[in-house]
Protein backbone atom coordinates (compact mmCIF):
# COMPACT_ATOMS: atom_id res chain seq x y z
CA UNK A 1 0.00 0.00 0.00
CA UNK A 2 1.17 3.53 -0.80
CA UNK A 3 1.10 6.20 1.89
CA UNK A 4 -1.52 8.18 -0.08
CA UNK A 5 -3.82 5.17 -0.06
CA UNK A 6 -3.94 4.79 3.72
CA UNK A 7 -7.67 5.11 4.40
CA UNK A 8 -9.17 7.74 6.69
CA UNK A 9 -12.76 6.51 7.05
CA UNK A 10 -13.90 7.66 10.46
CA UNK A 11 -16.77 5.75 12.07
CA UNK A 12 -15.78 6.84 15.57
CA UNK A 13 -14.50 3.35 16.38
CA UNK A 14 -11.44 4.81 18.13
CA UNK A 15 -13.48 7.59 19.78
CA UNK A 16 -10.70 10.06 19.06
CA UNK A 17 -8.52 8.37 21.69
CA UNK A 18 -5.74 7.58 19.25
CA UNK A 19 -5.01 6.90 15.58
CA UNK A 20 -3.58 3.67 14.31
CA UNK A 21 -0.21 3.47 12.58
CA UNK A 22 -0.44 1.68 9.22
CA UNK A 23 2.71 0.55 7.42
CA UNK A 24 2.86 1.80 3.84
CA UNK A 25 5.34 2.84 1.15
CA UNK A 26 6.13 6.52 0.46
CA UNK A 27 6.96 8.09 -2.93
CA UNK A 28 10.68 7.32 -2.48
CA UNK A 29 9.93 3.63 -2.02
CA UNK A 30 10.57 3.64 1.73
CA UNK A 31 8.31 1.94 4.24
CA UNK A 32 6.87 4.31 6.83
CA UNK A 33 3.78 4.58 9.02
CA UNK A 34 0.77 6.77 8.39
CA UNK A 35 -1.80 7.24 11.11
CA UNK A 36 -5.32 6.20 10.22
CA UNK A 37 -8.68 6.85 11.89
CA UNK A 38 -10.29 3.82 10.29
CA UNK A 39 -11.25 1.95 7.15
CA UNK A 40 -14.73 1.21 5.76
CA UNK A 41 -14.56 -2.61 5.52
CA UNK A 42 -13.06 -2.81 8.99
CA UNK A 43 -15.70 -0.47 10.41
CA UNK A 44 -18.36 -2.64 8.78
CA UNK A 45 -17.14 -5.88 10.34
CA UNK A 46 -16.71 -4.23 13.73
CA UNK A 47 -20.23 -2.84 13.52
CA UNK A 48 -21.56 -6.28 12.58
CA UNK A 49 -19.96 -7.82 15.68
CA UNK A 50 -21.46 -5.13 17.89
CA UNK A 51 -24.87 -5.48 16.24
CA UNK A 52 -24.81 -9.15 17.21
CA UNK A 53 -23.85 -8.32 20.78
CA UNK A 54 -26.55 -5.64 21.06
CA UNK A 55 -29.18 -7.94 19.62
CA UNK A 56 -28.39 -10.56 22.26
CA UNK A 57 -28.51 -7.92 25.01
CA UNK A 58 -31.93 -6.77 23.81
CA UNK A 59 -33.34 -10.31 23.62
CA UNK A 60 -32.11 -11.04 27.13
CA UNK A 61 -33.47 -7.74 28.45
CA UNK A 62 -36.91 -8.73 27.19
CA UNK A 63 -36.63 -12.14 28.84
CA UNK A 64 -35.69 -10.56 32.16
CA UNK A 65 -38.58 -8.08 31.96
CA UNK A 66 -41.02 -10.88 31.19
CA UNK A 67 -39.77 -12.83 34.21
CA UNK A 68 -38.11 -15.69 32.35
CA UNK A 69 -34.54 -14.87 33.36
CA UNK A 70 -32.86 -13.14 36.30
CA UNK A 71 -31.07 -9.79 35.87
CA UNK A 72 -27.75 -11.65 36.05
CA UNK A 73 -28.48 -12.97 32.55
CA UNK A 74 -28.88 -9.42 31.28
CA UNK A 75 -25.66 -8.13 32.84
CA UNK A 76 -23.74 -11.14 31.53
CA UNK A 77 -24.70 -10.17 27.96
CA UNK A 78 -24.20 -6.49 28.67
CA UNK A 79 -20.61 -7.22 29.72
CA UNK A 80 -20.06 -9.54 26.71
CA UNK A 81 -19.46 -12.42 29.10
CA UNK A 82 -20.84 -15.92 29.44
CA UNK A 83 -21.70 -18.04 32.47
CA UNK A 84 -18.25 -19.65 32.42
CA UNK A 85 -16.38 -16.35 32.55
CA UNK A 86 -18.65 -14.93 35.26
CA UNK A 87 -18.08 -18.10 37.30
CA UNK A 88 -14.33 -17.49 37.12
CA UNK A 89 -14.71 -13.90 38.33
CA UNK A 90 -17.07 -15.05 41.08
CA UNK A 91 -14.88 -17.97 42.10
CA UNK A 92 -17.85 -20.37 41.95
CA UNK A 93 -18.89 -23.23 39.67
CA UNK A 94 -20.44 -22.50 36.29
CA UNK A 95 -23.53 -24.59 37.08
CA UNK A 96 -24.15 -22.35 40.07
CA UNK A 97 -24.13 -19.25 37.87
CA UNK A 98 -26.55 -21.03 35.54
CA UNK A 99 -28.86 -21.73 38.48
CA UNK A 100 -28.77 -18.03 39.39
CA UNK A 101 -30.13 -17.17 35.95
CA UNK A 102 -33.51 -18.52 37.07
CA UNK A 103 -35.57 -15.78 38.73
CA UNK A 104 -36.77 -18.00 41.61
CA UNK A 105 -33.18 -18.95 42.53
CA UNK A 106 -32.01 -15.37 42.10
CA UNK A 107 -34.57 -14.16 44.65
CA UNK A 108 -33.03 -16.41 47.30
CA UNK A 109 -29.48 -15.09 46.89
CA UNK A 110 -27.96 -13.52 49.98
CA UNK A 111 -26.45 -10.02 50.06
CA UNK A 112 -22.88 -11.23 49.99
CA UNK A 113 -23.33 -13.07 46.69
CA UNK A 114 -25.34 -10.21 45.22
CA UNK A 115 -22.58 -7.75 46.16
CA UNK A 116 -20.06 -9.99 44.47
CA UNK A 117 -22.08 -10.21 41.26
CA UNK A 118 -22.61 -6.45 41.29
CA UNK A 119 -18.88 -5.89 41.58
CA UNK A 120 -18.17 -8.20 38.63
CA UNK A 121 -20.63 -6.17 36.53
CA UNK A 122 -19.32 -2.81 37.86
CA UNK A 123 -22.72 -1.77 39.22
CA UNK A 124 -24.23 -1.48 42.72
CA UNK A 125 -26.19 -4.25 44.41
CA UNK A 126 -29.28 -2.03 44.33
CA UNK A 127 -29.01 -1.63 40.57
CA UNK A 128 -28.56 -5.37 40.14
CA UNK A 129 -31.78 -6.32 41.91
CA UNK A 130 -33.90 -3.46 40.50
CA UNK A 131 -35.43 -4.98 37.38
CA UNK A 132 -37.48 -1.88 36.65
CA UNK A 133 -34.39 0.08 35.55
CA UNK A 134 -34.04 -2.34 32.63
CA UNK A 135 -37.10 -0.64 31.14
CA UNK A 136 -34.91 2.35 30.36
CA UNK A 137 -31.84 0.42 29.20
CA UNK A 138 -32.52 0.54 25.54
Amino acid sequence: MKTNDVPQDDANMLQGKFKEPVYSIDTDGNYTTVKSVGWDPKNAVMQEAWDNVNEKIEQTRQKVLSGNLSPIAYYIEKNIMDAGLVAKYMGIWKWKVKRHLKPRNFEKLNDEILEKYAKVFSISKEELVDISILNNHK
Partner: protein
Amino acid sequence: MVNIIPNIELNFTHKQFAHCENGVVSNLLRYYGIELSEPMVFGIGSGLFFSHMPFLKVGGIPVTSFRPLPGIIFKRISRRLGIKFEKHKYSNPHKAMDALDENLKNNIPTGMLVGIYHLTYFPDPYRFHFNAHNIVIYGKKDNNYLISDPIMESYETLTYDELLRVRYAKGTFAPKGHMYWAKTIPENIDIESAIIKGIKHTCKDMLTIPIPMFGVKGIKFLSKKVRSYPKKFGARKAASYTGQIVRAQEEIGTGGAGFRYMYGAFLQEASVILKNDELKKLSYELSEIGDLWREFAVIIGRIVKNRNKADESYDKAADLLLVIADREEKFFKKLKSSIT
Protein backbone atom coordinates in the same frame (compact mmCIF):
# COMPACT_ATOMS: atom_id res chain seq x y z
CA MET B 1 -4.35 2.01 50.09
CA VAL B 2 -1.24 3.19 51.84
CA ASN B 3 1.15 5.03 49.64
CA ILE B 4 4.28 3.03 50.32
CA ILE B 5 6.51 4.65 47.75
CA PRO B 6 7.04 8.29 46.91
CA ASN B 7 6.58 9.58 43.40
CA ILE B 8 8.90 7.82 41.01
CA GLU B 9 9.22 8.49 37.34
CA LEU B 10 11.80 6.59 35.32
CA ASN B 11 13.39 8.25 32.35
CA PHE B 12 11.37 6.15 29.96
CA THR B 13 10.58 7.20 26.40
CA HIS B 14 7.29 5.92 25.08
CA LYS B 15 6.64 5.39 21.39
CA GLN B 16 3.41 4.33 19.79
CA PHE B 17 3.41 1.08 17.83
CA ALA B 18 0.95 -0.93 15.85
CA HIS B 19 1.31 -4.14 17.84
CA CYS B 20 1.56 -4.41 21.63
CA GLU B 21 3.96 -7.32 21.98
CA ASN B 22 6.52 -5.82 19.56
CA GLY B 23 5.93 -2.40 21.02
CA VAL B 24 6.62 -3.34 24.62
CA VAL B 25 9.85 -5.12 23.68
CA SER B 26 10.98 -2.16 21.58
CA ASN B 27 10.10 0.36 24.31
CA LEU B 28 11.79 -1.68 27.06
CA LEU B 29 14.98 -2.21 25.04
CA ARG B 30 15.24 1.51 24.27
CA TYR B 31 15.45 2.16 28.01
CA TYR B 32 18.59 0.02 28.04
CA GLY B 33 20.10 1.76 25.03
CA ILE B 34 19.09 -0.69 22.30
CA GLU B 35 17.17 0.92 19.43
CA LEU B 36 15.13 -1.63 17.49
CA SER B 37 12.18 -0.60 15.37
CA GLU B 38 8.84 -2.36 15.65
CA PRO B 39 9.23 -4.17 12.29
CA MET B 40 12.68 -5.36 13.42
CA VAL B 41 11.29 -6.83 16.63
CA PHE B 42 8.41 -8.35 14.68
CA GLY B 43 10.69 -9.89 12.03
CA ILE B 44 13.30 -11.25 14.43
CA GLY B 45 10.52 -12.64 16.61
CA SER B 46 8.91 -14.32 13.56
CA GLY B 47 5.56 -12.66 14.20
CA LEU B 48 4.03 -13.27 10.78
CA PHE B 49 1.82 -16.32 10.62
CA PHE B 50 -1.47 -17.68 9.42
CA SER B 51 -3.82 -20.17 11.00
CA HIS B 52 -7.45 -21.14 10.64
CA MET B 53 -8.84 -23.45 13.32
CA PRO B 54 -12.50 -24.26 12.71
CA PHE B 55 -12.88 -26.22 15.95
CA LEU B 56 -11.49 -23.40 18.10
CA LYS B 57 -14.26 -20.86 18.57
CA VAL B 58 -14.41 -17.50 20.28
CA GLY B 59 -17.90 -16.15 20.83
CA GLY B 60 -19.16 -19.07 18.72
CA ILE B 61 -17.07 -18.07 15.69
CA PRO B 62 -14.15 -20.14 14.31
CA VAL B 63 -10.80 -18.47 14.86
CA THR B 64 -8.60 -17.22 12.03
CA SER B 65 -5.37 -15.64 13.18
CA PHE B 66 -2.54 -13.78 11.49
CA ARG B 67 -0.10 -14.12 14.39
CA PRO B 68 1.40 -16.83 16.57
CA LEU B 69 0.05 -17.36 20.10
CA PRO B 70 0.61 -14.44 22.50
CA GLY B 71 4.06 -14.50 24.10
CA ILE B 72 5.77 -16.33 21.23
CA ILE B 73 7.27 -13.24 19.59
CA PHE B 74 8.58 -12.20 23.00
CA LYS B 75 10.17 -15.59 23.63
CA ARG B 76 11.80 -15.73 20.22
CA ILE B 77 13.19 -12.22 20.24
CA SER B 78 14.77 -12.61 23.68
CA ARG B 79 16.35 -15.91 22.67
CA ARG B 80 17.66 -14.58 19.37
CA LEU B 81 19.13 -11.40 20.86
CA GLY B 82 20.42 -13.12 24.00
CA ILE B 83 18.42 -10.91 26.37
CA LYS B 84 17.37 -12.53 29.61
CA PHE B 85 14.03 -11.54 31.10
CA GLU B 86 12.89 -12.21 34.63
CA LYS B 87 9.26 -13.37 34.73
CA HIS B 88 6.85 -13.79 37.61
CA LYS B 89 3.23 -14.68 38.33
CA TYR B 90 1.60 -14.05 41.68
CA SER B 91 -1.31 -15.86 43.26
CA ASN B 92 -1.90 -12.93 45.63
CA PRO B 93 -2.90 -9.75 43.77
CA HIS B 94 -1.61 -7.41 46.46
CA LYS B 95 1.77 -9.14 46.44
CA ALA B 96 1.83 -8.63 42.67
CA MET B 97 1.33 -4.90 43.21
CA ASP B 98 3.99 -4.81 45.94
CA ALA B 99 6.45 -6.54 43.64
CA LEU B 100 5.74 -3.90 41.01
CA ASP B 101 6.36 -1.08 43.52
CA GLU B 102 9.60 -2.76 44.54
CA ASN B 103 10.72 -2.85 40.89
CA LEU B 104 9.92 0.82 40.39
CA LYS B 105 11.91 1.65 43.51
CA ASN B 106 14.85 -0.12 41.88
CA ASN B 107 14.42 1.86 38.64
CA ILE B 108 13.23 -1.12 36.63
CA PRO B 109 10.55 -0.41 34.02
CA THR B 110 8.28 -3.44 34.15
CA GLY B 111 6.24 -5.09 31.44
CA MET B 112 3.04 -6.92 32.19
CA LEU B 113 0.07 -8.72 30.71
CA VAL B 114 -3.36 -7.20 31.21
CA GLY B 115 -6.96 -7.74 30.10
CA ILE B 116 -8.42 -5.16 27.76
CA TYR B 117 -12.02 -5.20 28.91
CA HIS B 118 -11.48 -3.07 32.01
CA LEU B 119 -8.74 -0.89 30.54
CA THR B 120 -10.38 2.47 31.17
CA TYR B 121 -8.46 4.50 28.59
CA PHE B 122 -9.23 2.12 25.68
CA PRO B 123 -11.89 3.05 23.08
CA ASP B 124 -15.16 1.27 23.95
CA PRO B 125 -15.71 -0.48 20.58
CA TYR B 126 -12.44 -2.35 21.12
CA ARG B 127 -13.07 -3.34 24.73
CA PHE B 128 -13.72 -7.04 24.73
CA HIS B 129 -12.38 -9.86 26.90
CA PHE B 130 -8.91 -10.20 25.41
CA ASN B 131 -6.30 -10.93 28.06
CA ALA B 132 -2.94 -10.89 26.35
CA HIS B 133 -2.36 -7.17 26.03
CA ASN B 134 1.10 -5.88 27.00
CA ILE B 135 1.94 -2.61 28.75
CA VAL B 136 4.93 -1.16 30.62
CA ILE B 137 4.72 0.56 34.00
CA TYR B 138 7.49 3.11 34.36
CA GLY B 139 6.51 5.12 37.42
CA LYS B 140 4.03 6.13 40.08
CA LYS B 141 2.73 9.61 40.73
CA ASP B 142 0.16 10.68 43.34
CA ASN B 143 -0.82 7.02 43.68
CA ASN B 144 -1.43 6.63 39.95
CA TYR B 145 0.68 4.24 37.95
CA LEU B 146 2.33 5.71 34.87
CA ILE B 147 1.65 3.53 31.88
CA SER B 148 3.31 3.17 28.51
CA ASP B 149 0.77 1.31 26.37
CA PRO B 150 2.26 0.67 22.90
CA ILE B 151 -1.13 1.12 21.24
CA MET B 152 -1.68 4.60 22.68
CA GLU B 153 -0.10 7.75 21.31
CA SER B 154 0.91 9.15 24.71
CA TYR B 155 1.31 8.15 28.34
CA GLU B 156 -1.66 6.89 30.33
CA THR B 157 -2.35 6.40 34.03
CA LEU B 158 -4.28 3.86 36.09
CA THR B 159 -5.12 3.81 39.79
CA TYR B 160 -4.01 0.96 42.05
CA ASP B 161 -7.45 -0.67 41.87
CA GLU B 162 -7.78 -0.24 38.12
CA LEU B 163 -4.37 -1.78 37.49
CA LEU B 164 -5.03 -4.62 39.89
CA ARG B 165 -8.28 -5.38 38.11
CA VAL B 166 -6.76 -5.65 34.62
CA ARG B 167 -3.82 -7.70 35.94
CA TYR B 168 -6.27 -10.21 37.33
CA ALA B 169 -8.69 -10.38 34.40
CA LYS B 170 -10.19 -13.87 34.09
CA GLY B 171 -10.79 -16.19 31.16
CA THR B 172 -8.61 -17.39 28.28
CA PHE B 173 -4.95 -16.36 28.74
CA ALA B 174 -5.76 -14.98 32.24
CA PRO B 175 -2.67 -12.90 33.08
CA LYS B 176 -2.56 -13.90 36.80
CA GLY B 177 -0.42 -10.89 37.62
CA HIS B 178 2.27 -11.94 35.15
CA MET B 179 5.06 -9.37 34.89
CA TYR B 180 8.50 -9.32 33.30
CA TRP B 181 11.58 -7.14 33.13
CA ALA B 182 15.02 -7.19 31.55
CA LYS B 183 17.57 -9.00 33.65
CA THR B 184 20.72 -9.19 31.54
CA ILE B 185 21.42 -7.43 28.29
CA PRO B 186 24.39 -8.65 26.23
CA GLU B 187 27.09 -6.14 25.31
CA ASN B 188 27.11 -7.09 21.67
CA ILE B 189 24.02 -8.12 19.82
CA ASP B 190 24.49 -10.14 16.68
CA ILE B 191 21.66 -8.58 14.74
CA GLU B 192 22.52 -10.19 11.39
CA SER B 193 22.25 -13.73 12.62
CA ALA B 194 19.10 -12.87 14.60
CA ILE B 195 17.47 -11.53 11.43
CA ILE B 196 18.37 -14.62 9.43
CA LYS B 197 17.07 -16.94 12.14
CA GLY B 198 13.85 -14.94 12.28
CA ILE B 199 13.31 -15.11 8.51
CA LYS B 200 14.08 -18.83 8.32
CA HIS B 201 11.60 -19.56 11.06
CA THR B 202 8.83 -17.59 9.35
CA CYS B 203 9.44 -19.37 6.03
CA LYS B 204 9.28 -22.70 7.83
CA ASP B 205 6.02 -21.74 9.58
CA MET B 206 4.39 -20.57 6.38
CA LEU B 207 5.55 -23.43 4.12
CA THR B 208 6.22 -26.66 5.93
CA ILE B 209 3.92 -27.28 8.91
CA PRO B 210 2.35 -30.62 7.94
CA ILE B 211 -1.13 -29.73 9.19
CA PRO B 212 -3.55 -28.10 6.74
CA MET B 213 -4.64 -25.36 9.16
CA PHE B 214 -1.36 -23.42 9.23
CA GLY B 215 0.65 -21.24 6.87
CA VAL B 216 -0.06 -21.23 3.13
CA LYS B 217 -1.99 -24.49 3.45
CA GLY B 218 -4.18 -22.82 6.04
CA ILE B 219 -5.12 -20.06 3.58
CA LYS B 220 -6.23 -22.68 1.02
CA PHE B 221 -8.16 -24.46 3.75
CA LEU B 222 -9.91 -21.22 4.71
CA SER B 223 -10.80 -20.64 1.05
CA LYS B 224 -12.67 -23.94 0.98
CA LYS B 225 -14.48 -23.06 4.19
CA VAL B 226 -15.48 -19.57 3.02
CA ARG B 227 -16.96 -21.05 -0.16
CA SER B 228 -19.10 -23.42 1.87
CA TYR B 229 -20.30 -20.89 4.49
CA PRO B 230 -23.45 -19.44 2.83
CA LYS B 231 -24.92 -22.85 1.93
CA LYS B 232 -23.94 -24.43 5.20
CA PHE B 233 -24.86 -21.69 7.66
CA GLY B 234 -27.16 -19.23 5.89
CA ALA B 235 -26.57 -15.57 5.12
CA ARG B 236 -26.43 -14.16 8.63
CA LYS B 237 -24.04 -16.64 10.23
CA ALA B 238 -21.83 -16.78 7.14
CA ALA B 239 -21.43 -13.00 7.39
CA SER B 240 -20.36 -13.26 11.05
CA TYR B 241 -17.87 -16.01 10.24
CA THR B 242 -16.20 -14.11 7.42
CA GLY B 243 -16.36 -10.84 9.35
CA GLN B 244 -14.15 -12.38 12.03
CA ILE B 245 -11.45 -13.06 9.42
CA VAL B 246 -11.31 -9.38 8.53
CA ARG B 247 -11.45 -8.31 12.18
CA ALA B 248 -8.37 -10.47 12.84
CA GLN B 249 -6.68 -9.22 9.70
CA GLU B 250 -7.23 -5.53 10.41
CA GLU B 251 -7.33 -5.67 14.20
CA ILE B 252 -5.63 -2.87 16.13
CA GLY B 253 -2.04 -3.92 16.23
CA THR B 254 -1.62 -5.54 12.86
CA GLY B 255 -0.41 -2.42 11.10
CA GLY B 256 -2.83 -3.45 8.34
CA ALA B 257 -3.50 -6.41 6.00
CA GLY B 258 -2.65 -9.19 8.41
CA PHE B 259 0.85 -7.97 9.29
CA ARG B 260 2.03 -8.25 5.64
CA TYR B 261 2.86 -4.54 5.49
CA MET B 262 4.74 -4.62 8.78
CA TYR B 263 6.78 -7.60 7.61
CA GLY B 264 7.52 -5.74 4.38
CA ALA B 265 8.94 -2.88 6.44
CA PHE B 266 11.09 -5.42 8.28
CA LEU B 267 12.45 -6.89 5.03
CA GLN B 268 13.36 -3.43 3.78
CA GLU B 269 15.27 -2.67 6.98
CA ALA B 270 16.88 -6.11 6.88
CA SER B 271 18.02 -5.58 3.27
CA VAL B 272 20.15 -2.64 4.41
CA ILE B 273 21.65 -4.44 7.42
CA LEU B 274 22.40 -7.64 5.49
CA LYS B 275 23.33 -5.75 2.30
CA ASN B 276 20.90 -7.92 0.39
CA ASP B 277 19.01 -6.19 -2.46
CA GLU B 278 16.81 -9.20 -3.07
CA LEU B 279 15.13 -8.59 0.32
CA LYS B 280 14.22 -5.06 -0.75
CA LYS B 281 12.56 -6.37 -3.92
CA LEU B 282 10.70 -8.92 -1.84
CA SER B 283 9.53 -6.21 0.56
CA TYR B 284 7.65 -4.57 -2.33
CA GLU B 285 6.21 -7.89 -3.44
CA LEU B 286 4.86 -8.48 0.05
CA SER B 287 3.18 -5.07 0.02
CA GLU B 288 1.34 -6.18 -3.13
CA ILE B 289 0.22 -9.34 -1.34
CA GLY B 290 -0.99 -7.14 1.52
CA ASP B 291 -3.04 -5.22 -1.06
CA LEU B 292 -4.69 -8.48 -2.10
CA TRP B 293 -5.65 -9.16 1.51
CA ARG B 294 -7.19 -5.69 1.57
CA GLU B 295 -9.17 -6.51 -1.57
CA PHE B 296 -10.44 -9.57 0.26
CA ALA B 297 -11.51 -7.34 3.17
CA VAL B 298 -13.39 -5.05 0.77
CA ILE B 299 -15.43 -8.01 -0.56
CA ILE B 300 -16.20 -9.21 2.96
CA GLY B 301 -17.10 -5.67 4.06
CA ARG B 302 -19.73 -5.59 1.32
CA ILE B 303 -21.04 -9.04 2.25
CA VAL B 304 -21.36 -8.00 5.87
CA LYS B 305 -23.23 -4.81 5.01
CA ASN B 306 -25.81 -6.81 3.02
CA ARG B 307 -25.81 -9.64 5.49
CA ASN B 308 -29.46 -10.51 5.26
CA LYS B 309 -29.21 -11.56 1.62
CA ALA B 310 -27.35 -14.61 0.35
CA ASP B 311 -24.54 -13.39 -1.84
CA GLU B 312 -22.50 -14.84 -4.69
CA SER B 313 -19.46 -12.81 -3.49
CA TYR B 314 -18.44 -15.69 -1.24
CA ASP B 315 -17.08 -17.46 -4.33
CA LYS B 316 -15.18 -14.35 -5.29
CA ALA B 317 -13.68 -14.09 -1.80
CA ALA B 318 -12.73 -17.78 -1.82
CA ASP B 319 -11.10 -17.45 -5.26
CA LEU B 320 -9.09 -14.48 -4.07
CA LEU B 321 -7.84 -16.47 -1.07
CA LEU B 322 -6.52 -19.11 -3.49
CA VAL B 323 -4.68 -16.42 -5.44
CA ILE B 324 -3.21 -15.09 -2.17
CA ALA B 325 -2.15 -18.58 -1.04
CA ASP B 326 -0.41 -19.12 -4.37
CA ARG B 327 1.36 -15.75 -4.22
CA GLU B 328 2.46 -16.32 -0.63
CA GLU B 329 3.77 -19.79 -1.40
CA LYS B 330 5.97 -18.42 -4.17
CA PHE B 331 6.95 -15.46 -2.01
CA PHE B 332 8.13 -17.44 1.00
CA LYS B 333 10.05 -19.88 -1.24
CA LYS B 334 11.88 -16.93 -2.79
CA LEU B 335 12.45 -15.40 0.64
CA LYS B 336 13.94 -18.65 1.89
CA SER B 337 16.36 -18.95 -0.99
CA SER B 338 17.33 -15.27 -0.78
CA ILE B 339 19.02 -15.74 2.60
CA THR B 340 20.70 -19.09 2.00
